[in-house]
């Protein structure tokens, strides 16, 4: 049996345990009394607040019951916010208005477990940090300075420093901007990064050592090279001592690349080795950095159903945990450094997807991997669905994204990106990027839905019914993959890919057949001409500028780069930690030079049909 089978069994065992405890609460008076006392204490810890119209409200809503079975069901089955099994939320009092600590993985990691007061202690290491904004706006276009300008534009509306970077195609595939045939792709759909100098330009003017700074990078196959460039650029600006203070996330999820997103350079085993090298280096050296973001987003965008998205994402996460453990890493050291990223579309299952995932991750990590509390918490980033947005009558996309945001927040996501309505045509233009950001502010700050009371919805009968079905669906997929030999064996048999493709094909067929209404596309079509929106495109002049900068960099380092590449090759061939060496290599070598060097050592990925 692979770990997946054990995880599925552990969830069943946990559910049986909960049922037994509920029964015990109803029959054993002593246990019932304990639960009632605990419940009273929890209720007493809840502060009151009031809405702007004067309605008094508790800051945290709990099921209204005194029945010991129901109390046990809630506390053990769902979990008090910030308590195992974390279905309700990873932390207490997320999103609440002012003066209260909001969800912050690194600050709360030390305080959440022990939090008895409703106002969780602010971590002493970050005295200035109080409110953690969930909003992350993904941006990347043109050259580094263009993205830098967009960051500054978006930043005007945020209290804390939040930089989320999209990269262009050549960078995502580890190619230099002067690689034959890629010029037209330079700076398209994301920022072009070839060298450490580009990385320096990208974050110019931002103090990345601020305790409220958080940088995220949507980067996978070349993630180790790009993160090494980020570290090198930060060291140049803030001194070598800055590294432990760098906060943020790099995606680096190679399993989902092979299964869905297709940005793969090296063979699977080498890809996983480079990733594990990076994680192992980051855990001690960058304690505030998330070196992997285990992502369902691209799995869902490529066609997966919500249940498949959750099942493949969680199983990928458990696979990384298994690989790291097999390399001798401590689950309690790396566990809290794993983070997750889910898509949120309009299908009903999205109402509970984050909740179910947190619960399954916590049970699996605790009961199969022996993880402690901090390593049980699934920290979630959500992005609204790009696939749900369409070009026809595109302003409807604002409503779609708004609804998806609402559902993401109902799942108490730790951070969130909202898509721009113009994304079906272009990298977001300023106007729609700003509307997307304001959508989040309207829901969280303008509306009263989330800011007065936490857990307005959790425990509702409809949600509970959905949670049970979604959980069952996920466990069924786990068991199917278990019979195939686990995640990697299933992947080699194309299991995930064919399931995703099949689901994507069904989705398209439903649209064409009109069974899945898409307003403006196959229902209530008003035949408006497609809008002419100003497109964010990179001009050929800029693309050539990027190439000339790259050539100048290569020229400048022409003497030093061969030695640096030779050192890297030696480390790669001898089985050493490649990331430890990359931190040096990027000083004098470009992304493409490094990719070519590593390809010579480990070979190329062979795509699966």
């Amino acid at each position, binding site marked *: 049996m692979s770990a997946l089978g054990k995880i599925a069994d552990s969830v069943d065992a946990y559910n049986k345990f909960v049922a037994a405890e509920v029964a015990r609460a109803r029959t054993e008076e002593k246990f019932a009394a304990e639960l009632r006392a605990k419940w009273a204490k929890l209720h007493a810890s809840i502060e009151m607040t009031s809405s702007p119209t004067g309605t008094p409200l508790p800051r945290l809503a709990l099921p209204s019951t005194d029945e010991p079975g129901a109390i046990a069901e809630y506390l053990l089955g769902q979990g008090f916010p910030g308590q195992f099994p974390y279905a309700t939320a990873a932390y207490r009092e997320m999103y609440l208005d002012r003066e209260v600590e909001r969800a912050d993985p690194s600050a709360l990691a030390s305080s959440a477990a022990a939090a008895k007061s409703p106002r969780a202690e602010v971590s002493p290491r970050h005295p200035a940090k109080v409110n953690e904004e969930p909003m992350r706006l993904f941006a990347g276009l043109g050259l580094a300075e263009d993205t830098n300008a967009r960051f500054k534009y978006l930043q005007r509306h945020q209290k804390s420093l939040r930089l989320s970077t999209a990269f262009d195609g050549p960078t995502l595939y580890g190619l230099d901007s002067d690689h034959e045939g890629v010029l*037209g792709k330079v700076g398209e759909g994301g920022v072009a990064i070839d060298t450490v100098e580009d990385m320096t330009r990208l974050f110019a003017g931002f103090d990345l050592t601020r305790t409220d700074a958080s940088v995220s990078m949507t980067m996978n196959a070349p993630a180790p090279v790009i993160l090494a460039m980020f570290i090198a650029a930060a060291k140049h600006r803030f001194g070598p001592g800055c590294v432990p203070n760098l906060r943020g996330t790099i995606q680096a999820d190679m399993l989902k690349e092979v299964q869905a997103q297709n940005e793969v350079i090296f063979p699977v085993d080498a890809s996983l080795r480079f990733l594990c090298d990076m994680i192992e280096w980051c855990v001690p050296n960058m304690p505030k950095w998330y070196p992997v973001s285990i992502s369902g987003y691209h799995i869902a965008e490529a066609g997966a159903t919500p249940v498949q998205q959750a099942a493949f994402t969680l199983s990928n996460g458990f696979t990384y945990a298994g690989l790291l453990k097999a390399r001798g890493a401590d689950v309690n050291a790396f566990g809290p450094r794993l983070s997750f990223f889910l898509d949120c579309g309009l299908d009903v299952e999205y109402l509970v997807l984050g909740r179910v995932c947190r619960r399954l991750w916590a049970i699996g990590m605790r009961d199969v991997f022996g993880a402690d509390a901090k390593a049980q918490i699934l920290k979630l980033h959500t992005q609204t669905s790009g696939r749900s947005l369409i070009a026809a009558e595109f302003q409807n996309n604002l409503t779609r994204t708004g609804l998806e945001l609402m559902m993401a927040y109902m799942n108490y996501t730790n951070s969130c990106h909202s898509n721009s309505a113009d994304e079906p045509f272009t990298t977001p233009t300023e106007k729609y990027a700003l509307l997307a950001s304001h959508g989040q502010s309207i829901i969280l700050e303008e509306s009263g839905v989330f800011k007065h009371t936490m857990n307005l919805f959790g425990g509702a009968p409809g949600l509970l019914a959905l949670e049970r079905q979604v959980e069952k669906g996920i466990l069924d997929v786990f068991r199917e993959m278990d019979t195939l030999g686990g995640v990697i064996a299933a992947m080699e048999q194309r299991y995930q890919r064919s399931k995703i493709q099949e689901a994507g094909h069904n989705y398209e067929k439903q649209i064409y057949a009109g069974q899945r209404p898409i307003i403006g596309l196959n229902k209530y079509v008003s035949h408006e001409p497609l809008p002419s929106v100003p497109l964010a495109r990179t001009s050929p002049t800029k693309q050539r500028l990027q190439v000339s900068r790259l050539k100048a960099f290569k020229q400048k380092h022409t003497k030093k780069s061969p030695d640096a590449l030779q050192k890297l090759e030696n480390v790669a061939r001898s089985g050493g930690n490649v990331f430890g060496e990359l931190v040096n290599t990027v000083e004098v070598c470009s992304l493409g030079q490094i990719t070519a060097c590593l390809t010579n050592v480990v070979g190329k990925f*062979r795509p699966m049909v």
Partner: protein
Amino acid sequence: MAAAHPPRPAAPLRILTAVPVCDGHDSAVTTINIELARHGLEVIYLGYHQSAAAIVRAAIQEDVNVVGLSSYNGGHIVFFKEVADQLKKSGNGDIPVFGGGGGTITKADERVMKRQGTDRIYFAGTPLDAMMAEIKKDYARAAKPNAKFKGDRALARAITIAESGLGTRHLSLVTSPQKSRRCFVVGVAGPGGAGKSTLIDELTSRFLRSNPTGRIALLANDPSHPDSGGAILGDRVSAIYAQDDRVFFRSLATRGNLTGLSAAAPAAIDILKQSGEFDLIFVESVGVGQESDPFRIFGKGRKLVDATLFVLAPYYGGLIQLQKIALLNGADLVALNKCDHPMAHTAKAEIQARLDQNHREQKLHPTTAAKHFDPGVDALFTAIAKLGRLDVSRGGEKACSMEVSS
């Protein structure tokens, strides 16, 4: 008396589909490939992240009616133009290019792209059936000899003519009296899923490394769908080393022929041999069973190939099953692929014992083609080179530059 021969149906339309370089969005193209095949087209799918040069090379070698590109992350204006320009410059401007990109390609882009040589853009919301009908109607054409075609396109067109059943009289066009290389033809057969395509690709990389000037040809046979007559010919997707001008790769659909090869395969082999271009030719059969003989190695007639490589995976089902496989008697070379599989240990012993019964000194080659730089594949290639007396002395490790972009 009823007519013995019903009218020959028109040869299926051949289309090359691909996703441009640095773009991994393949869900739209996957859906469209399935629809195209369902509508009776032969779809040669090249995969995602494909350079313009690779697309043009494949379009030429496959002699397709049309190229369809699915682009989702920008840069389409430059990229589509590059593909159209390269086709034109190489004398293959008769192959039209169309494409789509959901909402990423705008109406304004379409106008520019049409001026720059793109035939048509499909926008989001186009009904698939309408798209299919239009493609079938607009891109049908007869496979006639064309004296203007040069190089690989001339070879490719000769094979297309052979495929359409018009005989091999076009052969003279590709016969080059100047070039008369000795050519070694290896037939590769084995059950579906044994890893034949991957193994051939790894052998191709060994050839390219060991012979820095020679050329190799690959004929990949895949079954047609019995109902629609269409096919998805996807061998190019995982053939990462075939993306080289020294490799001629042609996908053949069987079009109802049940021998394990296209009915045109013998003619295609002759065409490739006559061209004098190639040192080595691999002919890959469809997945074959126990009594197939795709290369006609049993019996008295002329064999289609100079040597046969039989490939199987460790999960063949037991000793009795092994006994039944006729090609194990006739094959010159036998490879047990997927040797990283737990059953490989037993399989090696059982298959070697089975080969020993033949008293032909057949040696089993254990390989793990999916593993890069597998020494088992090295040994197999050395055996092939020895058998075919290939000149492999000129090369070296650096001869095949590892193209970073596939």
